[in-house]
């Protein structure tokens, strides 16, 4: 796996937005609002968010339930589109991409880690990790090799043939992290990755994320309720009622 950030200048929608002489912001949100329709009511979940996350950063997004953390994460990860404002990742506007283009973009730029691991129960750890590589032109042998490297990185090379049901919660989450890493994305988004783990497993997972940031230069965004989890990040942003209230 290659380390560090990459840009995707080949993408037709790429619209570089960086100013000359300034640091490259990997994530740049400007005036982002997001509202949903609930019946006849319109609910605004995020209000005019401006957010910059430089490459190689490790940001924790904290806030009470319903504050819009996951919505913000979904917008950054290209799973959802803002109602207003712009979302640029590595200089590329993604808020105007079609759903197909967004899927292709996600496949190469973002790794996802979920609270409940979301592994496919009938596939071995290795096959689960290989999933994102099915979308590449890699051969079966190359996919296997990449998956093994990712599993080594999370300390689970010896459990490659085990199915999720045969692994502990912490181990399953490490497999999920390996799956997120295997296509070498520039950005890892983690939505409550320790929310379903005991303290010790949570600590192991957080240290692993920290290592990915420090040693491999990965940019991480961690959504969490847990202040102890947030301590592992380099910076913390607080959301309250859809607004960023504090710069960490």
């Amino acid at each position: 796996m290659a380390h560090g950030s990459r840009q995707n200048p080949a993408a037709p929608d790429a619209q570089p937005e960086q100013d000359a002489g300034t640091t490259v912001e990997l994530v740049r949100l400007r005036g982002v609002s997001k509202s949903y329709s609930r019946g006849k009511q319109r609910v605004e979940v995020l209000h005019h968010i401006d957010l910059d996350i430089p490459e190689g950063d490790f940001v924790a997004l904290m806030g009470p339930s319903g504050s819009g953390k996951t919505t913000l994460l979904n917008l950054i990860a290209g799973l959802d589109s803002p109602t207003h404002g712009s979302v640029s990742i590595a200089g590329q506007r993604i808020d105007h991409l079609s759903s197909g283009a967004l899927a292709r973009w996600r496949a190469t730029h973002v790794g996802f880690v979920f609270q409940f691991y979301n592994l496919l129960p009938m596939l071995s750890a290795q096959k689960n990790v290989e999933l994102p590589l099915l979308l590449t032109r890699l051969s079966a042998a190359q996919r296997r090799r990449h998956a093994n490297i990712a599993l080594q990185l999370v300390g689970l090379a010896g459990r490659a043939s085990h199915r999720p049901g045969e692994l502990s919660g912490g181990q399953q989450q490490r497999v999920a992290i390996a799956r997120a890493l295997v296509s070498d994305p520039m950005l890892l988004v983690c939505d409550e990755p320790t929310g379903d783990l005991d303290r010790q497993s949570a600590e192991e997972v957080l240290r692993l994320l920290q290592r990915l940031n420090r040693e491999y230069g990965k940019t991480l965004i961690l959504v969490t309720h847990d202040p102890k989890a947030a301590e592992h990040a380099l910076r913390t942003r607080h959301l309250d009622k859809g607004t960023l209230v504090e710069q960490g």
Partner: protein
Amino acid sequence: MFVKYLPLLWAGLMRRKTRTVLTLLSVVAAFTLFGMLDAVRIAFNAPNSVAGINRLIVTSRFSIIQPLPFAYTSRIQAITGVRNLAYAIWFGGVYQDRKNFFPNMAVSVHEYLTIHPELVLPAAQQQAFRHTRTGAIVGKTLVERFGWKIGDKIPLEATIFPKKDGGNIWTFDLVGIFHADRPELQGIERQMLFHYDYVDEGRMQDQGTVGWYIVQVDDPADSDRVALAIDRLFANSAHETKTQSEKDFQRSFVKQIGNIGLIVSIIMGAVFFTLVLLTGNTMMQAIRERIPELAVLKTIGFPNRIVLLLVLSEAIVIMLCGGLGGLMLAHTLLPVMATATSGQLNLPLTLSTWLLGVALMILIGLLIGLPPALRTLRLNVVDALRG
């Protein structure tokens, strides 16, 4: 290209093994039935042909229950290429109870035995049959069924031909027991044969008529011409004829029940309609359970068309595995059925049945796979991940 997604397909199928196996079994059962019924449909819809046949059956052109004049005998015999001519009538007698059904026919004994060398019985019994006016010969299977023995008197109640004296019971003397000369003809061992003359003279109606003629030709290669010559001879007469092979004649007999092809098609339609409902519901349920997994695939960048293809393939694979299994089972069962019915139901599974079967498997697969596949297309990843 799609090969690399096979583990995903397999994972989907194996997620609930019991459900997959039960679904497969229902598909196997449906296509076994399809294979067997389609063989019947093809057999009954096959065009009539007498090419290469050395025995022809002449019946009324309009219905096999319409009798033909006995007077046709000499005119048919006069046709070039006719070697022997026998005749018969369907007697339809009942032994003790209607449920004891077996074929019983009055035949022109001398000619009938000459034309049917597959009826094997000792020379002495053959002689006794030829010379006993009330004599009857019975197949081995039928004798065993009722525990009859030579010398027994067998009373049959008439259902078609009451006697001149108003009586309804015809009594026959069992003078011979025959068997078939080869295993595939064992079906004839369920028959009972007796004298045409005895019945014709004693019956109240239809005297001087026969049910059908059996023509033995000199050269099987000439049977087409002979058949045509017979039918032309009686064209535009009061009793036009239809000359066909024995196999087609038997088919006509069964067709009296109704339009077999239509009946079979209706049954198959009902079977497949039920199959679509059952498997369609199972597929919907299976996909509903996997919404979070499919959402994850879409989250990590799987395009809609791949997810759609995965769901559709799953349905088609189930149909193909079960369907081909079912057709193979039918392929195995049909010869067993042929043996069990002593060759009377000899229905091979044809290439057209295989091809039609595969087309149906794919079509049903698409039908049952499309609704859940479209559902995955409309799947909102954010909502699905939120649960």
